[in-house]
């Protein structure tokens, strides 16, 4: 039994079958990649896992509990964090403030009326936020407005915000899209390090095959909303079905 179990999920948008009978099992403490051509339904699948969309049929279980019908913040509090395809950060706030918010969410839950403490006096929270920024080599940008970060840095910030919560399942939607080669390699190293250091399960959607093959333990290939194959990376490379549906097209 995996930490994430998706069974028989269907999702239609009007006449379009975005997801058709998706079954997916992600084992704990592994990196599971989902690949597939544009429009295959990868982001839609992710949205069904985090409460953004509700599947028409099927079930999604995380750690033995259903996530369906729960709100995004409840699902996050269960231990699922998500990085978006286009970075979602608090653009009006500083990088440091961006980091502090998930730390509070982790410690205090979905709502707490702490109107009389001062953020600056929450030493444990501030130290955690700073430490994470140091780990990501972003400490010099701490006081910057996060809206003025480069696109790559915004992604890293968003990832840092998610990691700070020490989620049990981290969902990444094309985390290296639009990144320069060097930044992509940094991200790979970072994810490898996280994977080794922590008990974390990562589910990653990725276009860049270099990233996928350097990180993934398992790969699911999605095409037109349906999983084509699920296998170890070395078997995916040679699979003729995959070549036809995806790699062939990309090449």
């Amino acid at each position: 039994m995996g930490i994430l179990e998706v069974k028989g999920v269907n999702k239609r948008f009007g006449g379009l079958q975005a997801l058709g009978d998706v079954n997916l099992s992600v084992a704990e403490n592994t990196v599971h990649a989902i690949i597939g051509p544009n429009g295959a339904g990868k982001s839609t699948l992710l949205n069904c896992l985090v409460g953004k969309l509700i599947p028409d049929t099927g079930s999604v279980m995380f750690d033995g509990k259903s996530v369906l019908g729960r709100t995004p913040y409840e699902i996050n509090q269960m231990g699922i964090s998500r990085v978006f395809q286009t970075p979602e950060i608090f653009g009006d706030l500083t990088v440091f403030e961006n980091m502090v918010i998930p730390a509070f969410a982790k410690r205090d839950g979905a709502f707490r009326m702490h109107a009389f403490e001062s953020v600056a006096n929450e030493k444990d929270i501030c130290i955690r936020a700073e430490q994470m920024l140091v780990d990501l080599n972003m400490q010099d940008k701490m006081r910057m407005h996060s809206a003025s970060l480069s696109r790559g840095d915004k992604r890293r910030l968003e990832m840092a915000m998610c990691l700070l919560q020490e989620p049990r399942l981290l969902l990444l939607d094309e985390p290296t899209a639009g990144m320069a080669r060097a930044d992509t390699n940094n991200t790979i190293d970072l994810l490898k390090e996280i994977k080794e250091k922590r008990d974390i399960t990562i589910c990653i959607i990725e276009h860049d095959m270099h990233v996928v093959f350097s990180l993934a333990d398992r790969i699911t290939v999605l095409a037109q909303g349906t999983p084509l194959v699920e296998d170890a990376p070395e078997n995916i490379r040679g699979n003729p079905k995959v070549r036809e549906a995806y790699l062939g097209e990309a090449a």
Partner: protein
Amino acid sequence: MLGLDKKDATILLVVIALALLAPFLLNPFPSNSGLAQFNAGYPDLMQRFVIFGIFAIGFNILFGLTGYLSFGHAAFLGVGSYSAVWMFKLLSMNVLPAILLSIVIAGLFSVLIGYVSLRRSGIYFSILTLAFAQMSFNLAYSVLTPITNGETGLQLTLDDPRVLGQTATASGNIPATNVFGLEMRSTYTMDVGAWSFDFNAGYYLCAIIMILAFYLSLRIFRSPFGLMLRAVKSNQQRLNYTGLNPKPYTLAAFIISGMYAGLAGGLLASMDPLAGAERMQWTASGEVVLMTILGGAGTLIGPVLGAGFIKYFENIFSKINDNVLHQWFSFLPEGMEDTLVFLLHPFVGKGWHLTLGILFMLVVTFLPGGLVEGGQRLSRLFRRRSRDTDTTPDPEHHPKESPHVAE
């Protein structure tokens, strides 16, 4: 100091100094000089400065931090006033229980209105609050006449019970509002040469409460709660996916700002014990929006500045009539004098709205951060000037620091 860092403590001290010294600061001109009409240091007006300051400080907690623009906050102001007057009628003329009830009742109202209105955001939220406020206004004006005394407004009478106080004074008058015997209307006038300064008990009560209200808002701005409110404004999607529920945060901000409005309404009634439905009208709700934006939404001190600015215009600028203009320009040749007065006429006296409107447009266009941004730009200009005169220019590159919410 008081859980504030150095910069915030300075801001608080400035506000305290301004509030306590207002009777001097607002009366800079000798009382018999031609400029005396620009003096704003009389009790009535000073009370309104700080009371509307409180109203705007509270409004800013909702609008400035979360970005939710309420067009119905005057409803809470009115509810506060009615509650206070009822307290004066039934309990006693002591203002403290009256103010407390104002805050509580306004708080209850804002739970209800906030809960419903916050189901939507953006323009729909604004319209919902506006609709609620208009409903309240109409209820107060007609349907709820037994409670609000309709269009006449709620007033004290000589046969109110006042169970803990007296129904009428020995001389047969309605007793005055007071704090444990200190009457709100009692004023000490100090004459210094040609100047005259009024120290009014009511003003100082309002000023102290305003300082407390400001301190509270300062703490909220710096708290994790305040940070969450700013996060609501910045990106609700991210907030949701970070495991935080934006709803209770926004509702809490709404209730707090409603209670501030109730407090302001209670104070208005404490200074002048009557309450009318017009206090709830949409123009009154619009006024606090203007105050906050003019001063600088989301800044600490902006709302107070904006409130002072608008109240000054309303009360002082509106008194400049054609006679005054003629007086000013009497040194000019007849023809020029008349032309000038003719040209200025639409902008002064009853035309003060026009001038305020133009100023508002200028500020919003050129200083989106309001008067506070204007102040910051000026001080930066001066600092740069003084740095330019330094013989050793700083060779280091200064990265642009992100603006601080306060200042």
